[in-house]
Structures are given as C-alpha cells and as structure tokens.
C-alpha cells in the first residue's frame, strides 16, 4: 500500500511538471487560438539562457531578470514576425508555422549557448523528505513538492491576472471573439504581445523546474510533446484543465508503468499518456474543461 501511495504521489508530482509546460500552451491558445508547438523549445531556450548566464558567474536574480526580459522580447518578436502576417489563417497553418518556429528557436539557442547539457542548481535539494520516509516509509522528493508549490502560485497569479485586472479582461475578450474585441477598441496586437510574453515567463518557470530535475539539454524540447495529451485531457482553453489533466496523466502514467509495464515489456511511458488522451477524446472530444464546439453550416 505504501508503495502504491508512493507511486501515485510521485506520478502526481511529475504531472505538475507536465502542467507547467501545458499552462504555456493554454495561455496562448486561449488568447489567440494558436496551438503553439514551439512552447517546448521556448522552455528549452529559457532554461538554456538562464543556465548559461549563471555559469558565466552572473547573480541568480540578475540572470533571472535578464532571461525574463529575453523571453518577453522573444515573445514580442514572434508576434510581430510570425503571427501578425498570419492573422485569419486556418489553425492548421498556424500550427505548422509554430513547428517551423520550433526549429528556429532550437537552432538559435544552440547556436548561442552551445549544445552540451548543463546541470542546474537552485538551492533546493532533490532528496526525499526525511520525516515522511521515516514515519510512513514513503519517498517523496522535496524538490517535487517545491515544484508543486511553484505551479500553485503560478496558477493563482494567472487566475488573478485574467480575472481581476484590466489586461485580463481584455485577454478574455480577445479569446472570446477577435472581431468584437477589436470593435470595442481593444488593441489586438498589444494583447497578443502580452500573451506571448506571459507564455515566455511560464516557459522560463517550467524550464527551471525541468532543468533542475533532468538537466538542461536538448531532450527538454520533448517534454512539450508530453504536454499535448495533458491538454487534450484538460481541454485547450482551461488553465484549471491543464493542472488537472497534468495530474491525471502523471499519476496514471506512473501507475501504468509500474503495474502494467512489466507485462508488456516496459517503456510504455512513451505512449501511454497519448492512448489515455485518445480514449478520452472518443468520449468527450472537447476535454474535461474545454468549451463545447458546435458546428453550424
């Protein structure tokens, strides 16, 4: 039983990491209807920039601030060069454009900082919490809990940002209807730039968390692919969905790997999440919290 709890808890906490990446997708999708395939490479870019600045002897907070500024600039640049010329194109075109963007971002970040993997240390040790393992014999990493905390704070901040502020109202208006938002005088382009900047910030946070866990390396871009089933499960438009979806995917993936894996030869973690998401799609095509799509001729 203890072992089961440990597996589930480990899975849930790993799910939080997926959610962090998925959040970036949701923010952009909500406001611009763009499925940003490049979110993974944004995570990679942010983490690599941060770690490289640290290794050049920069102060932690200074490096964080500079990376933040860089991500905002990247977001605004993407909006200006990729999205603005592609306004009113079908979603598939936009998706393919962001796949192209993935290659550009990965190329640029490796050109700038080199392609060797880096270790990242934020001062929070990745060790099991002592009293939990002593008392209940359950191993849960301290860092995982920290990541969960960060995700919680991030979601709270995003919720306040979208629900309580003027910018947030504009964001939601743009998400609802581009044309109506334009008609009441909301500057669409500014809003998109803000959205991409926020997504860049989320990418930075996700990049830091993943970087501590797995090191900053090229494989980081693949985490973005893991975020896709999370999105499907949670729905593309829902911040809460990203979190809940991440938790479900994380937990079920770990449980399946541990209890089902040995029967089929292991390694099912690479596709199990997708299969859950697919089966789920057949029942509820719009995800747990997504908006129901109604087709009219």
């Amino acid at each position, binding site marked *: 039983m203890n072992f089961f709890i440990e597996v589930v808890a480990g899975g849930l906490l790993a799910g939080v990491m997926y959610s962090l990446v998925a959040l970036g997708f949701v923010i952009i999708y909500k406001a611009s209807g763009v499925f940003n395939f490049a979110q993974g490479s944004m995570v990679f870019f942010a983490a690599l920039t941060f770690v490289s600045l640290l290794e050049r002897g920069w102060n932690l907070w200074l490096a964080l601030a500079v990376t933040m500024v860089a991500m905002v600039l990247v977001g605004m640049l993407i909006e200006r060069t990729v999205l603005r010329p592609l306004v009113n194109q079908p*979603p598939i075109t936009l998706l*393919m454009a962001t796949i192209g963007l993935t290659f*550009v971002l990965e190329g640029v970040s490796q050109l700038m900082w080199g392609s060797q993997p880096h270790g990242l240390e934020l001062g929070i040790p990745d060790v099991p919490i002592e009293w939990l393992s002593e008392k209940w014999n359950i191993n849960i990493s301290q860092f995982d809990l920290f990541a969960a905390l960060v995700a919680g704070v991030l979601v709270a901040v995003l919720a306040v940002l979208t629900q309580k502020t003027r910018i947030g109202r504009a964001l939601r208006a743009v998400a609802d209807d581009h044309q109506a938002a334009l008609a009441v005088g909301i500057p669409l382009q500014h809003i998109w730039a803000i959205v991409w900047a926020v997504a860049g910030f989320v990418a930075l946070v996700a990049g830091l968390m993943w970087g501590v866990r797995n090191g900053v390396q090229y494989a980081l871009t693949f985490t973005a692919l893991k975020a896709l089933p999370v999105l499907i499960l949670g729905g593309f438009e829902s911040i809460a969905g990203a979190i809940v979806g991440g938790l479900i995917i994380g937990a079920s993936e770990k449980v399946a790997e541990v209890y089902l894996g040995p029967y089929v030869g292991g390694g099912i973690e690479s596709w199990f999440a997708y299969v859950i998401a697919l089966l789920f799609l057949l029942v509820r095509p719009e995800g747990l919290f997504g908006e129901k799509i109604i087709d009219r001729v």
Partner: protein
Amino acid sequence: MLYREAGQFKSTYGEDQQIFPILQDRIAIVALLLVAFVVVPLVGDQYWLSAILTPFLVLALATLGLNILTGYAGQLSLGTAAFMAVGAFMAYNAMLRIPHMPILGAFIIGGLCAAAVGIVFGLPSFRIKGLYLAVATLACQFFVLWAINRIGWFSNYSSSGVITAQRMEILGYPIDTPASKYVLTLAIVVFMALAAKNLMRSETGRAFMAVRDMDVAASVIGIPMMKTKLLAFAISSFYCGVAGALYAFCYLGTVEPEAFVLDLSFRVLFMMIIGGAGSILGSFLGAGFITLFPIFLNLASKWLENALGMEIPHALVSNTEAIIFGALIIFFLIVEPYGLARLWQITKEKLRLWPFPH
C-alpha cells in the same frame, strides 16, 4: 514564344480532360521521364544515385502520401514516419516468412499493413478534427515505434532491433546495384504518382477536397464522412507504407526503428508545405528542395571555409540549417501558402506571354 497552346484544338471531352492538355507539356514530361529512366542510370555516379536521387524519390512518395491526407483531405498527420516504419518492417517480414515472395508483393503487403494501421489511428478522426487529430496521429507515431522496438517478431528477434533488407530480384534480375535500385524506385514512384493524380481527379478526390474545405457542408451534400476520411487515411498510409519499404530496401539496406522517429515525420511535413499542399507536383518539388538543400548548404560552408581560410564548426552548420529550415517554413506559409507548385504555375503563366508583356 515556344510555350503556347495556340492552334491546339480539343474536339473530345477526353482530350479536354487529359492530365497534360498542352503539347509542349507532354513533350517535356516524356523527355523528363526518358532522362530519368535512361540517361541518369547510365551517366549518374554511385553517390548521386544511392545517396541523393533514391532518397529523394522515396521521400517524394512519402510526401505524396501525406499530401493526400493533409493537402487534399485536410486531416493533419504527424505520424508519417510511423506509417513508413510499418511498411518497412512488414515488407521485411513478408519477405522473411512467406516463401518465394516476390519483392513487389512484399512492398504491397507493407503498404496494406500500413493502410490498416492508418485506418485504426484514423478512427478518431470521425469524432475529432484539427489539432486534436494531430495529437492522435502523434500517438500513432510513439505507439508504433514502441511496438516495433519491443515486440521481437517485427525484427525477427534480432537483439538490436535492426533488420537487414533481403536481396531483391525481379523476374530473375537481381536488383543490387545503385542504378537498378534507382530504376526500381523510380518506376514505382512514377506509377503511384500517376495513380494519385488520377485518383485526385476522380469522385474520390473531389470528396476529399470537399471534406477539407468544409466538412459540415460536405456531409450536408451527401458525402459519407466516415468512409471518406478513413479512405483518405488508408490511401495515404498505403503510400507512406510503400515509401517506407522502399526506404528500407532501396535506400538504407539495414534499418533500425530509430530511422523512423518524429523528426522524419516533420521533414516530410515540411516537404509538403514547401512543395505545396494539395499538389502532386508539389510533393516532388518539396522533396527535391529539402533533399538538396543541406547538400547545397554544405557546399556553401565549404566554399566559405576556403574563402575565409578558417574552419567552420560542424555544430554551426547544422544549427544554421535548422534555423534556415524553420525560417523557410514560416516564410512559405506567410508569402506563398501553396508552395513551390504555385510558383511553378506562375512561371508557366509568365512563359505563355513571354516575350510580350501582355
């Protein structure tokens, strides 16, 4: 001056509907095929035949398959490489397990198995579309590669999962030189391209395009949605499967499952975008462009090295390549969404008027 249809009258519907209605086009295509079938194998050296032209043809066929699904029927797929993997490994197994299997039969079996997998993973397309479907095909990509890696049967229980393509023979002629492999690939690709062109001009092709342009409207005018979408998946995967088999038998020789990773799917997708979605000719133009581009870039970096007198690190070249690729995709999507095929069409329009401005 030369490229003009003046004086070429059509007196039957058949003449009006032929693939190349203009005499100059027919002459050009016959000349092109003659060069490709006769001249190239005679004069081409081994490097060009086996390292550039054969993969170009194979990838053009895969692009054609993706084009049928994405360009014509509008269902975005990120699982092309998985379908190719199914084709390659099933063709290998057909050769291995069925005695006296002709090689073309093995290719067809590979294609059919890929089509079956395509239908299974196309089933969700009835409920979902667009981005959600893209994720479903991504699931196919990961699942198929996992299955081929883990289930020993596919690779005949070789410890590393690597298979070695069997010797090919058609009617007693061994296919073992680069030139003969090239001719075999070319023949299959030309035949299948012709079939695709005709299929897309038929009722099936028009149904695909109706589904792509607006699926609700298509189902209202009586196009069976389920059948059309699954057919698109099946035909597309069949093409990709045959392409995968050719990739294994005519190009690589020894194949590991890792040859069919997601990156290959993306490359084929890029070929389709750059060549032109919804165009048979575009598949070839895009595949040619993306196959030749790294070679060109390599030459350019060599030339730069000589000119500057210093060595350019390999990482720099490969990263620059990725950046230019990505930028080109975005550039094409913004400036010319119909790709190189559209540019070719514009050139032809211009040629008809040349040398007069109007």
